[in-house]
């Protein structure tokens, strides 16, 4: 019989809270973490908004010596992992460590360190850069630090598939357990790219939201007629995935069962989202979960608030869900936490898992002007509580055409 995989621990550092309870509470209350950035460099940018992590002091978590080799994105990842491991009350024997691993997602790794290096070498023409630049900035640093800290001797891998990176990290970690290679996996994503160069590059692509003239926090408007794009954010999320039998035997708290995952590609355009490819991914994830569309009580949308993206995702949901599409609540929490790039898939899947856990659905905020082409139930502006959710889905659709869908179900023995 196929192994079942459950979620037993959660950890998050995000623009809307630095632990799972604060994170979900803030999402339910519809409060945005998007704001005008304070860094001095924003004066050089046309678009000056972002979703920064706040109230995070590295010195509260790391010694000065540790901080010489742990970049901001790895700091987020390690603190989120520590929360998840504590939440799961996870301990691993020496033998168990050989069957435990880590999968993380990140787009730009230590973007800040890279930029500092470029400034030294290219602008100041310094003959040297910080000697640990490579170790700080490498994309797999976050996963590697987690592996080292918890002695995870199984796979230690990092996925870089743009916006779906950490959804794929969670899904591939699930497969590691499902296919019998491991019994426990830490999975998630980390990103810290609110830097001048990265923001300038995104600005040039013309996909960033313009600042709302009345309220910077209301700048990201998924599925709304007046949407203008995404808002860059930073943070990390880590989940503990575990073989269900192991979790039951040790009496672990089980948030949910991860029952469906698919990762597949549009194979048509480097940026243009494609409803056909997205539909295919959703269909395959549902099939793996053994669920019908009507079983899904909530979809956490990719919902980037780009003009094309929100329409294509709406079409994809309609393609797969048919008549039920208009009844399933769909929300984009990016309206509040922004787009965390390599961390966003895991952050949003965590939002979906917490929705299931709490029988409550966070809203899509800033949805006051409906777009006729986006005509689903987007849980506009007001979260919903007192529901009976049985299964939830999280969509992640990336530049490059790499799509991932994750489905979690309430766990029953």
């Amino acid at each position, binding site marked *: 019989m196929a192994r079942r995989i459950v979620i037993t621990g959660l950890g998050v550092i995000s623009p809307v809270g630095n632990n799972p309870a604060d994170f979900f509470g803030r999402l339910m209350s519809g409060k945005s973490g998007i704001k005008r950035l304070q860094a001095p460099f924003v004066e050089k940018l046309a678009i000056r908004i972002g979703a920064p992590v706040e109230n995070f002091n590295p010195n509260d978590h790391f010694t000065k010596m540790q901080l010489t*080799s742990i970049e901001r994105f790895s700091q987020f990842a390690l603190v989120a992992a520590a929360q998840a491991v504590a939440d799961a009350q996870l301990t691993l024997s020496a033998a168990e460590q050989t069957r435990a691993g880590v999968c993380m997602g990140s787009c730009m790794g230590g973007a800040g360190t890279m930029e500092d290096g470029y400034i030294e070498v290219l602008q100041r023409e310094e003959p040297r850069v910080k000697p640990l630049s490579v170790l700080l900035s490498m994309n797999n640093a976050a996963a590697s630090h987690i592996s080292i800290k918890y002695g995870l001797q199984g796979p230690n891998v990092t996925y870089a598939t743009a916006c779906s990176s950490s959804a794929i990290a969670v899904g591939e970690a699930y497969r590691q357990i499902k296919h019998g290679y491991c019994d426990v996996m830490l999975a998630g994503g980390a990103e810290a790219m609110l830097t001048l160069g990265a923001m300038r590059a995104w600005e040039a692509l013309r996909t960033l939201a313009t600042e709302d003239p009345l309220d910077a926090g209301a700048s990201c408007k998924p599925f709304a007629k007046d949407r203008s794009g995404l808002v860059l954010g930073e943070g990390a999320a880590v989940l503990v995935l575990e073989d269900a039998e192991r979790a039951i035997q040790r009496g672990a708290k089980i948030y949910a069962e991860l029952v469906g995952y698919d990762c597949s590609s549009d194979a048509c355009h480097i940026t243009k989202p494609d409803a056909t490819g997205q539909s295919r991914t959703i269909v395959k994830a549902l099939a793996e979960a053994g669920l019908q569309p009507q079983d899904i009580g909530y979809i956490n949308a990719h919902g980037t608030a780009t003009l094309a993206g929100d329409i294509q995702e709406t079409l994809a949901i309609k393609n797969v869900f048919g008549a039920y599409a208009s009844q399933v609540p769909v929300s984009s929490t990016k309206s509040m936490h922004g787009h965390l790039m390599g961390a966003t898939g895991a952050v949003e899947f965590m939002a979906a898992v917490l929705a299931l856990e709490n029988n409550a659905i966070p809203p899509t905020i800033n949805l006051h002007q409906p777009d006729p082409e986006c005509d689903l139930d987007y849980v506009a502006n007001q979260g919903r509580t007192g529901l009976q959710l049985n299964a939830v889905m999280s969509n992640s659709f990336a530049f490059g055409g790499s799509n991932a869908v994750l489905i979690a179900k309430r766990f029953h023995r």
Partner: protein
Amino acid sequence: MSSLPTIQRMMVEQFDLKLEDLTPDALLEGLGLDSLSVIEFMFNLEDELKIKLTDERVELKTVQDVANIVDKLIAEQKGAA
């Protein structure tokens, strides 16, 4: 003048180490400084003491070893200036 006091002060500042632990014969590894920490430390020393490390690979085991190599570089590079 030996660079030892400067090195001790910088180790306290950079790594939150205790001055009393930084005896000349204290082992770097025993202080928690692995090879990467030492590389980072030497990089900062270059700035502080206006010296330039050479490509020569030297084995640094103790705090005094660091002071010795730095003193040698100071003598060579400041002397030549």
